[in-house]
């Protein structure tokens, strides 16, 4: 805090000195009237141009006469400022003192006196020095990212970072950390498995191409890896290979210990899938009760947006959102209809058109998949 007062006082003194210096320079008597100097200079320029042959004889005469007339007119109006008494100097001294005081008063109102700087590095150091049990996931993430900068080749560090990011709800960030981890320790099946799981979470429960690659790599290193086998089988079922997928799951179930808590859930999932002939969400009602967004809720929101746009259509962002929402829901007909409407409406705005096209390109998401949150 003392540093602040010293700096503020220093700056105040410096600017007050500038004001006083300006006043002192203002005391010096003025030279020639600058207006006259401009007109004289104009006359001499005309002569210079004529000397260089850049001005014709007729033009020279007329220009000289006109500039001369203006010089005479300005000379008539020329005025010199009077000498000054003490009054103005007192005003200046008062102003130089009052301005910083006024600023200080204002600062006490709009500023945050005493609030220290909180550069990120310092905050991270404080968190590291404190009790780790008291830290929430974002702070743990910040600490681990900080450590990773000085130890960029430690795969375990990236694994922990991924766990912390996942705990903070950042599956994409977790996958990014695990990508670095597997690059550093490609022989570790557990890292490949975690990477695959992070992809599955970031892709709303779907076993996408990236996840399959990761799980395949995990299986190469650990052929018995349960998570990798479970997810690859799930991917097969999603692709329509029900028989192969279910037999994969049954093999996983057989390998689970008798008292493994995951057994009942997997058995139920196998049963449900076998009956329905496809992947089925465990319990939509439960999801809604837990505050998750269900496809029905999303449909409702999209309908609301569509109605709003029908009433007030000049909302390019709204149209982009609507087109994207239909694309995500896989409702191709309505997506195209909305795209057509909006493209006609904003046909003169290439940026909106491009955003609309991009929104229409959004791939559909399986909102019935477990863990899907409608993003």
């Amino acid at each position, binding site marked *: 805090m003392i540093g602040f007062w010293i700096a503020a006082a220093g700056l105040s003194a410096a600017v007050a000195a500038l004001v006083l210096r300006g006043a002192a320079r203002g005391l010096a008597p003025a030279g020639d009237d600058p207006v006259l100097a401009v007109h004289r200079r104009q006359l001499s320029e005309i002569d210079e141009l004529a000397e260089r042959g850049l001005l014709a004889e007729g033009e020279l005469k007329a220009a000289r006469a006109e500039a001369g007339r203006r010089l005479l007119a300005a000379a008539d109006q020329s005025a010199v400022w009077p000498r000054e008494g003490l009054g103005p100097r007192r005003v200046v001294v008062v102003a130089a003192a009052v301005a910083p005081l006024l600023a200080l008063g204002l600062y006490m109102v709009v500023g945050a006196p005493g609030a220290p700087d909180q550069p990120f590095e310092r905050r991270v150091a404080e968190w590291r020095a404190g009790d780790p049990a008291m830290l929430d996931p974002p702070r743990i993430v910040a600490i681990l990212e900080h450590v990773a900068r000085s130890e960029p080749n430690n795969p375990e560090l990236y694994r922990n970072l991924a766990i912390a990011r996942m705990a903070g709800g950042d599956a*994409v960030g977790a996958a990014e950390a695990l990508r670095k981890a597997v690059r550093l320790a490609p022989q570790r099946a557990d890292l490949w498995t975690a990477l695959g799981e992070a992809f599955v979470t970031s892709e709303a429960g779907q076993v996408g191409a990236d996840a399959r690659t990761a799980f395949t790599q995990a299986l190469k290193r650990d052929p018995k890896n349960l998570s990798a086998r479970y997810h690859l089988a799930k991917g097969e079922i999603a692709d329509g290979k029900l028989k192969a997928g279910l037999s994969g799951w049954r093999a996983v179930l057989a390998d689970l210990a008798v008292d493994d808590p995951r057994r009942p859930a997997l058995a139920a999932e196998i049963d449900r899938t076998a009956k329905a002939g496809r992947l089925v969400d465990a319990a939509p009602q439960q999801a809604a009760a837990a505050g998750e967004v269900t496809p029905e809720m999303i449909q409702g929101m999209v309908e609301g947006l569509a109605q709003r746009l029908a009433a007030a259509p000049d909302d390019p962002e709204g149209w982009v959102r609507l087109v994207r929402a239909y694309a995500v829901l896989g409702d191709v007909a309505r997506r195209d209809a909305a795209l057509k409407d909006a493209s006609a409406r904003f046909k003169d705005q290439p940026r909106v058109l491009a955003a609309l096209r991009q929104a229409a390109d959004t791939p559909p998401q399986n909102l019935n998949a477990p863990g899907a949150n409608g993003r």
Partner: protein
Amino acid sequence: MIVEFGAFALVLALALSVAQTGLSAAGAWRRSGVLAGAGRGAALGAFAALACAFAALIYAFVGSDFSVANVAANSHTAKPLLYKVAGAWGSHEGSMLLWCLVLTGYGAAVAVFGERLPPRLRAWAVAVQGALGVLFLAYTVFASNPLTRLPDPPVEGRSLNPLLQDWALAVHPPFLYAGYVGFSVVFSFAVAALIEGKVDAAFARWVRPWTLAAWSLLTVGITLGAFWAYYELGWGGWWFWDPVENASFMPWLIGAALLHSAIVLEKRGALPGWTVFLALAAFGFSMLGAFLVRSGVLTSVHAFAVDPTRGVLLLSIMGIAAGFGFLMFAIRAPSLNAGGLFAPVSRESAIVLNNIILSAATATVLLGTLYPLIREAMDGEAVSVGPPFFNLTFTPLLVLALAILPAGPLLAWKRGDARLVMRRLWLALLIAAILGLVAYAVVTPRKALASLGLVLGFWLIGGALAELAERTKAFRAPWAEVRRRAGGLPRGAWGTTIAHAGLGLFVLGACFETAWKVESAQALSVGGRIELGGYVLTLTDVGTLEGPNYLAERGIVRVEKQGGGLVCTAQPERRFFPTGGQTTSEVALCPRGLDDLYVVIGERRAGANGQPAWLVRAYVNPWVRLIFLGPLVMALGGAISLSDRRLRMGVARKAKGAQA
């Protein structure tokens, strides 16, 4: 401590601006050198204090101090250093601080460099500049303070829009603001001259360097913005008549008109009322731009977040400042001396015509920008005004202005001879017409209007060179004399020639690119090809890479001439920024002389036979580089004019010695 010191420095700058206004106005009123000098000192102090505040904000951004609300909202620890620094002016609050820094900077410049100005004019100008500072600083301190603190800072920042993480955009606002706000000095001089009741040749001479500086900087700023839109937004164009683009273009047009009318006022003492009106209008349009961008009344990719309260405050500031300026104009205009007379065919008349057209063009842009607002206010109907409106209204006006432009500098003052001018320009016109015909005959598909546009571009360049040849007697006098005459030409004359030729380059680029660009978009798997404008583009690979704060898919596109021969390897990217969940396209540009091959890669999707495919869009943009080179050449012309010793602030000391 540093952030709070910055917050104190910001309010200190406000207090000093109040002192600057009061002391300078009292100094001018009472003819007191002491008070006026103290006002100038306060102007320097305000700039110094604001520089401290701005440095503190940059410090907070560089150190990722998320206890500062503005840093928390607009930065992130993973952002590269350059964009952390640029984040300081990437948001509404930070850019307002930059606006104020530039405003006080110009005030300080008048205080320092205006030594040879008439003391009263200078004191009034410093006072008006101070008053503008008070208005904008009060707004910044009370309504959009960038150094406001958060009691409970978040762990991580919310990042900056990834589209804004780009070098051109990082450097574009400082140039743009240096231009926009530069017109504040011109405004202050105009109000000062109106208070004094003396708008004469001397006023024009003092106002011209500031106008030139502001206009040149604005030219660079707008060009960088257009270049950013061209290669960062990824849809192949460079100007969209977007409201925010128009907001920057209107002061530029008025500034260009003012540059020319001030010459008439300086040389002939004519057009004082009109010149001072333009001087007021230029900054009026700058303020209108600030209002449009920040109030949320218009939708644009460039606009800051919507905030009606701030909009109303900015509208009030504009009303007070411009209202006072135009009130002074209304009071004084009737008594302004009309100045020298001139014939209908003369350089003055040409410049008047240029001014009328530029003002009409500004009015059409203003109408096109505000019409949607007016309609919505009147009958609630939402309409949008796009390129067709501007092509029909603005373009014909511009064509007319450009057609007469080369004749202007060749006409004599007072009374010109049209036949003489045509005798000097016929060769330029002939060459331009031949080149246009060649373009019409050679370039496919044939386009008559675009070929006419090219004639106009060549006419501008040829006309500028013909004027230079006339002044130096090139091809008519011995080489030694030509050299002597060229060496003796004032820099202002060189600046004019260069700026007019730059405009010609721009016209060539704009016409050629708009008329003859070709594009193609196809979903390509690896190995897929697009044939376009004589090139074959092959997607040879798509890999992933990690940037400092993004993940990207990078396409490797081999570009060959049809019939073989590698031209370049374009590497367009699609970047995903996990922090904000946003995706951007990174365009790959493959320069071919003046042309660009422009390649964009889209999202991955399922292609034929289960192979992944990417939507690849490619453009061949012929002569597109001239679109950006032309305005830079114009700005260079402005800078060269500015270096003319006749335009040095006040009057050159050497001249004073020569007169003694």
